């Protein structure tokens, strides 16, 4: 079967939807063979682990060498847990790689305002740091009512995040504890 590029795009949209929803009853093998060739010609393969539940399925990402953007994702056939298979969420990871609804700017909502404003990172981190310091210094309790040493910041709380990597989680808790925060919680509690 010879496919023109236009034919390919037409069928390929259906094929990828089929991956997510499965079982359309159409033989896509010629398309898949062509897609494979296209994908491997210009792409770099990167293994990762799915971001959803904790089964820990392997996913392979194909990144376009020219644009640096992920162009395709699939189950990692070599992975001992999933052997290439993925659930609907895992199979949709490509749509997370390319998603126009993502917020990719720093936003700020002022007191009593009804809208977001776009801001710069440098400004936001400095402003947050000022608030952390102000609140911490105002609410740091060195001794509790019984006179016991607690060195605790009562005014700040944090939730999150099981969505971070181990290294980020560890670093985050170290920061929170150095600030004296004890209201530290995340997804494991709920």
């Amino acid at each position, binding site marked *: 079967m010879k496919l023109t590029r236009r034919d390919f795009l037409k069928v390929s949209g259906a094929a990828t939807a089929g991956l997510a929803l499965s079982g359309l009853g159409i033989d896509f093998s010629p398309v898949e063979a062509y897609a494979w060739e296209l994908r491997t010609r210009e792409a770099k393969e990167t293994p990762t682990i799915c971001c959803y539940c904790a089964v820990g399925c392997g996913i392979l990402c194909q990144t376009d060498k020219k644009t640096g953007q992920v162009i395709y994702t699939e189950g990692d056939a070599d992975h001992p847990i999933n052997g290439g298979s993925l659930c609907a969420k895992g199979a949709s990871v490509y749509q997370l790689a390319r998603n126009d609804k993502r917020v990719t700017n720093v936003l700020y909502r002022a007191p009593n305002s009804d809208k977001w404003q776009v801001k710069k990172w440098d400004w936001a981190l400095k402003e947050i740091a000022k608030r952390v310091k102000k609140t911490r210094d105002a609410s740091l309790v060195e001794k509790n009512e019984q006179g016991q040493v607690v060195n605790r910041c009562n005014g700040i709380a944090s939730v*999150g995040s099981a969505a971070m*990597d181990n290294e980020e989680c560890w670093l985050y808790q170290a920061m929170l504890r150095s600030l004296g925060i004890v209201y530290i919680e995340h997804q494991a509690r709920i």
Partner: protein
Amino acid sequence: MGSNAAETHPVSFRWVMKAKDKGGTLIHVDPRYTRTSTKADIYAPLRPGTDIAFLGGMIKYIIENKKYFLDYVIDYTNASYIVGEKYEFKDGLFSGFNAEKKAYDSSTWAYAMDEKGVPKKDLSLQDPHCVFQLMKNHYSRYDLDTVSSVTGTPKDDLMKVFAAFSSTGVPGKAGTIMYAMGWCQHSVGVQNIRTISIIQALLGNMGIAGGGVNALRGESNVQGSTDAGLLFHILPGYNPTPTAALPTLADYNKKYTPSSKDPLSANWWQNRPKYIVSMLKAFYGDAAKPDDDFAYNWLPKGDEGKYYGWLDLFDAMYNKQLKGFFAWGMNPACSGANSNKTREALANLEWMVSVNLFDNETASFWKGPGMKPGKIKTEVFFLPCATFLEKEGSISNSGRWAQWRYKAQEPEGMSKRDGDIIYQLFLQIRELYEKDKKAKFPNPILNLNWDYATDRKFDPHLVAKTINGYWTKDTAVGDKTFRKGEQVAAFAMLKDDGSTACGNWIYCQSYNQDGNNMARRDKTDYSGIGLYPKWSWAWPVNRRIIYNRASVDPAGKPWNPKRTVVEYIADIKDGKYLPGGTWKGDVPDGPWPPLRNPDGSAREDAKLAFIMKPDGYASLFGPGLKDGPFPEHYEPLECPVDKNPFGAQLTNPIAATLKSDKDSIMSCDPRFPFVGTTYRVSEHWQTGVITRHMPWLIEAEPQVFIEMSEQLARLKGISNGEKVIVQSPRGSLEVVAIVTKRLKPFTIQGQEVHMVGLPLHFGWIYPKNGGDSANLLTPSVGDPNTRIPESKAFMVNVLKKGA
């Protein structure tokens, strides 16, 4: 039980189906008939919140029909221990109950000790005060009729499940449990899991291939984030957070380092001081000095008896006790129980930081339903973070495999990796403290190790190496000298004198002198049981099945030689093992020889199987929990009945409850006559912040719905596909009705009880007509041990819209 693996952890179910193909029996016990049920050999319905009644009935069945694995029970569980005379269970309460304090004095549950300080035992299991007999007596009340009247499970189904599961209590068979939030989110959550742990210990199913009690964790790294101590009650590596009552490191170590007088007990937690000191060295480096308690004083301390958990946190915020808040990769405006309370609480803050991929109901709470932005002062900073495809690092799955993943593209737009945000934010904070000579208590901030960047960017390898641990000075151990800065090989080498730094002792070995073990991709599996020991790395010390010393008989030979996990190999002379023996197979729970020689004689150099338990045995009797040493059925705090046939106590007497005006609970109230529960669907994840924005997924599951039985639909005049209003004492929600045969009414204590269920993935922000969060309905009450909210059983009403 407590999970719907086929839909919520679909790829885990791939392995269930493989087991089924090999002749395994699949049992599904669940309030709803789901896709897991469709694949089950036996399906049994039960009313939400009655798992202990169900499983208590199974314990009674196992004991009375002698289905337990006797040798395992005697050698590896505390069945033979004698409990002290003060222990009693009466009228639904355990001894030591203090109604005023809503707490138990667990000293009344202590074991009777012999003159050496080791618990007394009766290996015949006949002593009326031994654990086995107390347990038999405790569950004698859990007869089929009573269990069925509480759970609503037909008696035939109970018998089928009991017979099938308890048939695994023989050496050649294995039974496993896959549970999820269906067990945790109850006011008896921990005891739900305790009940199955008792069953698995009775049946000899712990530590063996195909056995265990498996938590199907819901977040890709919720195992790792818990390991890292991102919780109010634990530091990294499951070390409790210090409290005000423990002013010095010595006080802390005294309270939390268990001791055992039994020479056969490994009592692994006796090593806790090494782990705490090494952690403090990882935090504070040279500033953590031996003569200053290694900066223990710099760790914040909660007040004794006060909780800082999820429910408490939002209660404090609601009561205007908090000013600043980080919602990092979380959406509490939809994810926590009693979301209306949470949403109002957010308006009491001065400032909030939301770190996320997408706009969400927490970040934009100020423009949510019923909110008036002009009256809400909270400043909100939204920081866009990178997706998992845009960064490198490790995550830990439900099987404790820490798997390294790699960056496939650069962070989109202005988004940053979480690691960079944390790293840079702390630099900014520290700079302010460096400039302000009058800043309050600056030392922990000024001295925190923060050398985690390469080219000024967060470097996950540097943190991973600190988590693993390194030598802080040249140190000789035996005939080998370790150089300052060298990675520590494994946690057995950690020290309590400051010569090692280790961020999280259970991850020691993950990134050692051999390199990044989490990145390994070698599929060699010589175990034959799918351990894949060279694929990634599992904590602790790459052990794939914990408590694997229980998979062998006391002489170290596998109970089931066809499914060997570990086996002791040594030369034998005159019926005794000679020195120099080794374990083959999985990494054993310690190197010590097995309990007995081939001729049955006891060995003094052996250790008991359950090395993390102070006494070395699996706990059939568990005196360490807050709400009782044996699980007891209590109704959910919001329930459809006013009597508990098992005892005079209706609900968990020490369940976590709160007192704000938003914390109403209404049992047996005619305004809320139906049992409600929440769950997930395959296509969405958590509050749906990510999955609602995936076009394929939102097309498949576009909006919140409520499932109800045909009987209830008839009763309320509701047709399939109609809009209905569901109400609880805490909130209401408009949803689409799905009228289905998958749900059936229960017969509870002679009454028909209806149940409805809703998925929890939706929120007002997107998609426009997707509806809102099911957690508007759930109660902010919870388990007394974990303080996890009771989201899985509560009371609601359902009305046709406009009726």
